[in-house]
């Protein structure tokens, strides 16, 4: 039986723990997981983070508020 335990922290960071894998098989499996996750998340969240960084650098679209 191959098992993988994954913890996801409040910051979204993941830690993997592989059991029942041997040597390269474990590395290949982790590569497959990360590659698939990358296809799903990096193209979305990383792009989002990049856009937000650009947006924050500009600041011009931040809401301007007036006192009531």
């Amino acid at each position, binding site marked *: 039986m191959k*098992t993988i335990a*994954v*913890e*996801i922290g409040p910051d979204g960071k993941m830690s993997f723990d592989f059991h029942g894998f041997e040597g390269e098989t474990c590395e290949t499996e982790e590569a497959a997981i990360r590659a*698939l996750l990358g296809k799903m998340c990096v193209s979305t969240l990383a792009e989002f983070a990049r856009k937000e960084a650009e947006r924050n650098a500009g600041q011009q679209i931040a809401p301007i508020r007036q006192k009531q």
Partner: protein
Amino acid sequence: MSKVVTLSAAVSAPVVFKEMIDKLAAKDPQFAALIQEMDTREIIAECVKSAVDALCANHADITRAPAVLDYYQKAFAGKFHKIIKSRAFSRGIGISVDEKTGTINFSADDYQHQSEVKRLKDLFHQYFIQEALKAVLEILGYNIEASREVVKDANTGAEKVMLSLCAGKER
């Protein structure tokens, strides 16, 4: 003047580099090609839905909302896949997936509620990662059990959520 804006997000994308695909391609070129060609937008939208379901099921103070409101309680006309709110922030946060890029956006008027909005976004992000991982592990043929633990920070007393997955398959 108050308005609903797309919020800056404290997202930390999972660190995945091109080397991962290259490494995979060296072992299994067909699978690597399959991943590269896969259109994941529908899976992402499904993960957004599942993440909101799990968020609302596990946190009594968080619910779905019918609309995103601004400071003056005026509804924002944007389209969202899901909208969530909390007891502490009832204006709502709109979550949408860009249909071309798959980018997830949050929209809200967070005036005077920045910390609560950040908490909600961070929680959503955490649950989204869990759902994305579940989808990935299912694609790879694993049976999955998900669990959640709330821990208190020893110094600040603030509650932190730890999510975990246990996946298994026969050799």
